């Protein structure tokens, strides 16, 4: 049967009612605003645009003044409850709302109202503040100040669930440093959080688990105190909660245990607990809501960088499970991203995991994710590819160099998001290593030219990753491909990249030169193009190398040049002696004295090539090296702690003896 529609008042109309002189009208308007915006982002936004938050915050402030003037009555409390509830609704899960509440100056008023004698007021205010403290925009609460710490303790000790929950939320959002973590421990807060774990309500337990994880993060000292006999058996309560009937509690307990294990690996060593955590997190993937979305991230933090856990997860069929979820399709972007990152962590170290991944043909699904509309998903797909393509066995078989993967990957080089670009370049760096004859596929897809363009990017991370990919691309490539890369890059661009302000770019540019001039002897001519622009840049960069890695790549580039003919060796010699630093000393001596054994090795190899007995100019070069103190430095290195250096030093000394040196 048709019935009459009850028209809800429009936002603008409600807003004018908020300024009504009639208390009844005003309270009803507040209630109506709150009801309209609950769980409705669109409504929140339209009220926000109309300036509803300052109006509500104004009512709250006026009511506080009324309390101060002892105009206490039911109306005032009603205003306080309704305005606080409305502000809380604006802030709930909506950062723009939180910002508006903070901008309207309501935050300090809400805090002050926690001391109000009326229970309903305190409850509404605590709820509103919790909403605010669920956002990253919430102001940091400085509990290093004694009075603030006392206030925090009073919140946690409150009988009211909302108030103690607020205390826990404040900790979760505000505790950042080791000093703050320790201060909370010293103030006895962990004992209180633990009692909330054991005897609190569902929401208190969850809030407490989150706070504990915050206080434990990267702080083994606090963890060992917490897990010690002083507090009882707190770890067992958390372990028990990992088996709780509520999925969110299980997730939070797992996250707390993972934080403990990651900070203090000697805790939770028991294989049973590790396996249990893996199984719980995999089961939580089946939760259709936020818990299921967050579960893969928790899983990643559990297994990242830990081969033993990756092995256990493989045995628990984690890859099959993730595969199953991606295959189902229509995933929430957060969950999609999390699963791809979890797969990336699974395949980051173990070949057995990569084998499983490839045999289940997860690769095709990851290739699809490269074109997803969500930037987080695209970046995660690239990171996943990056992990899987660490399989040298499959790189050797040319398994990854195919158009299904390479075309979408190259398209991501122009992605508007820098993190996607960098992730795509990371995966590309591995794929282009390819040992088969399929590198030309990458050129045909336009990948090589794009990489050269990206080497000119304004973002240094993009420049260095593009150069990294080019370095791997020209590794053991044929002459034609190397010439193609060089003509696209040009000597002037390459020399300016060697002199880039960013050290990571300098390092990759030098490594690229090193690979370009390896192989056929004619390729050495690259460094002599445009009047030796590149060689000059290498010399200048080596003179002022800011880190060992730059020296290593630069010296190997010179070593490769010096493996050519007499002209090449003489050019290297000239470079070593024209680029003199402080005390008129060649950088060669500095590198030979370096603490980095790889830098010493690269430098000695260059000297091996320069003094090669079969070359006619070797005695003359040896004489110059001797005069510059380089030979005597090498003699001092006969017992170098690094075997590789020691063996090359012996080669140099053997060669020098062939020319009559003792």
């Amino acid at each position, binding site marked *: 049967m048709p019935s009459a529609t009850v028209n809800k008042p429009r936002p603008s109309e409600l807003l004018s009612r908020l300024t009504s002189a009639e208390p009844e009208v005003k309270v009803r308007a507040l209630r109506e605003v709150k009801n309209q915006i609950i769980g409705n982002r669109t409504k929140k936004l339209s009220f926000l645009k109309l300036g509803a938050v300052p109006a509500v915050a104004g009512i709250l402030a006026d009511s506080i003044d009324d309390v101060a003037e002892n105009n206490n009555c039911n109306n005032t409390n009603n205003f306080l409850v309704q305005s606080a509830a409305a502000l809380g609704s604006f802030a709930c899960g909506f950062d723009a709302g939180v910002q508006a509440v903070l901008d309207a100056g309501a935050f300090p008023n809400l805090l002050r109202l926690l001391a109000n004698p009326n229970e309903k007021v305190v409850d509404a205010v605590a709820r509103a503040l919790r909403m605010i403290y669920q956002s990253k925009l919430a102001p940091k609460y400085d509990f290093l100040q004694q009075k603030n710490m006392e206030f925090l303790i009073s919140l946690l000790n409150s009988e009211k669930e909302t108030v103690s929950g607020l205390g826990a939320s404040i900790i979760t959002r505000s505790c950042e440093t080791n000093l703050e973590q320790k201060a909370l421990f010293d103030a006895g807060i962990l004992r209180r959080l633990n009692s909330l774990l054991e005897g609190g309500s569902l929401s208190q337990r969850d809030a407490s688990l989150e706070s504990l994880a915050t206080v434990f993060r990267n702080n083994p000292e606090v963890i060992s105190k917490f897990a010690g006999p002083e507090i009882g058996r707190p770890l067992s309560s958390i372990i028990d909660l990992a088996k709780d009937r509520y999925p969110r509690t299980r997730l939070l307990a797992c996250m707390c245990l993972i934080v403990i294990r990651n900070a203090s690996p000697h805790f939770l060593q028991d294989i049973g607990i590790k396996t249990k955590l893996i199984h719980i997190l995999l089961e939580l993937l089946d939760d259709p809501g936020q818990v299921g979305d967050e579960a893969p991230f928790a899983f990643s933090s559990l297994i990242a960088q830990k081969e033993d856990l990756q092995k256990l997860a493989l045995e628990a069929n984690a890859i099959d499970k993730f595969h199953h979820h991606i295959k189902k399709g229509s995933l929430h972007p957060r969950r999609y991203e999390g699963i791809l990152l979890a797969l990336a962590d699974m395949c980051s170290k173990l070949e057995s995991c990569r084998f499983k991944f490839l045999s289940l043909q997860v690769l095709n699904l990851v290739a699809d994710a490269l074109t997803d509309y969500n930037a987080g998903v695209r970046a995660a797909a690239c990171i996943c590819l*990056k992990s899987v*393509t*660490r399989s*040298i*066995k499959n*790189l*050797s*078989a040319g398994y990854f160099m195919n158009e299904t993967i390479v075309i979408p990957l190259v398209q991501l080089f122009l992605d508007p998001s820098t993190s996607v670009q960098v992730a795509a370049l*990371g*995966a590309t*760096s*591995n794929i282009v*290593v390819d*040992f*088969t004859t399929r590198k030309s596929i990458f050129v045909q897809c336009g990948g090589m030219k794009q990489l050269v363009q990206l080497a000119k990017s304004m973002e240094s991370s993009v420049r260095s990753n593009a150069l*990294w990919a080019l*370095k*791997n691309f020209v*590794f*053991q490539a044929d002459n034609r491909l190397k010439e193609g890369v060089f003509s696209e890059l040009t000597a002037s661009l390459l020399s300016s990249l060697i002199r880039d302000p960013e050290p990571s770019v300098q390092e990759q540019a030098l*490594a690229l030169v*090193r*690979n370009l*001039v*390896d*192989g*056929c*002897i004619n390729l050495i001519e690259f460094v002599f193009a445009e009047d030796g622009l590149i060689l000059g840049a290498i010399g200048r960069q080596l003179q002022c190398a800011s880190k060992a890695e730059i020296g290593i790549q630069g010296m*190997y580039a010179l*070593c*490769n040049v*010096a*493996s*050519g*003919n007499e002209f090449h*060796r003489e050019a290297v010699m000239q470079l070593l002696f024209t680029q003199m630093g402080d005390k008129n000393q060649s950088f060669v001596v500095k590198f030979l004295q370096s603490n980095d054994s*790889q830098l010493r*090795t690269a430098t000695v*190899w260059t000297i*091996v*090539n320069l003094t*090669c007995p*079969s*070359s006619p100019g070797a005695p003359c070069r040896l004489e110059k090296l001797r005069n510059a103190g380089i030979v005597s430095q090498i003699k001092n290195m006969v017992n170098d702690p*690094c*075997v*590789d250096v020691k*063996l*090359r030093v*012996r*080669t140099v000394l053997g060669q020098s003896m062939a020319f009559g040196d003792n």
Partner: protein
Amino acid sequence: MPVRVTESSTPSQVSGTNSGDTSPPACTLLSVGQFYLQTFSGTQNVSSLQKEEAWRVNVRIQGCDLEHGYLCGTMEALNVPMADTPVVTFWEGEIVDTKNYTFYTGKWEASPEDDKRHWTKFPSFSPLLSQVEVDGGKSLDLSNYPYIFMRWKEQYFVNVGTDCGLTIAGFYYVCFSCSDGSISGFYYDPNSSPFQKLELKSTNEGRSGYSFSSYELQ
């Protein structure tokens, strides 16, 4: 490198575990940190009672993961009589680092006796023999030893089918000299001629010095 099938098999015995001590040194001629990969060329003696024969061989190291004692690459046999083109195989290697792998193979039909019989063919192995007999070499400190011992096992044919009449069932005992980059090896397959010797030297591709390229996985 693939070989022809000849003799009958001998029984195998399993031994060897993973744990131990100090790994062999990093060596530029083989690899270090990042992958400075080298190429090697030489011969494999495949002589039988009937015929003296050696196949030319090129080896290219493609990857190395010292943490897991892993090495891999390709092996190209150039003048294989029954093949029209050079035959390329992909192999994976175990580095005897006393942590991931010991001198005892423990698989591939190689008994500890087979292991010792092959390792002792390398003169550089003799100082290690007595300790290897005690515990497979688990307690040896190889960090300053200028030789690296490995096993290379071919996994698949890269450019020919499995019906090419060749087998890659066996594996190589390998000794690498860090000083000059030379490689010696002995092929072991109970079904093939015993002690087929592999001899390789580091190649410089027409240069009069050493040149090193590298790739780095992300």
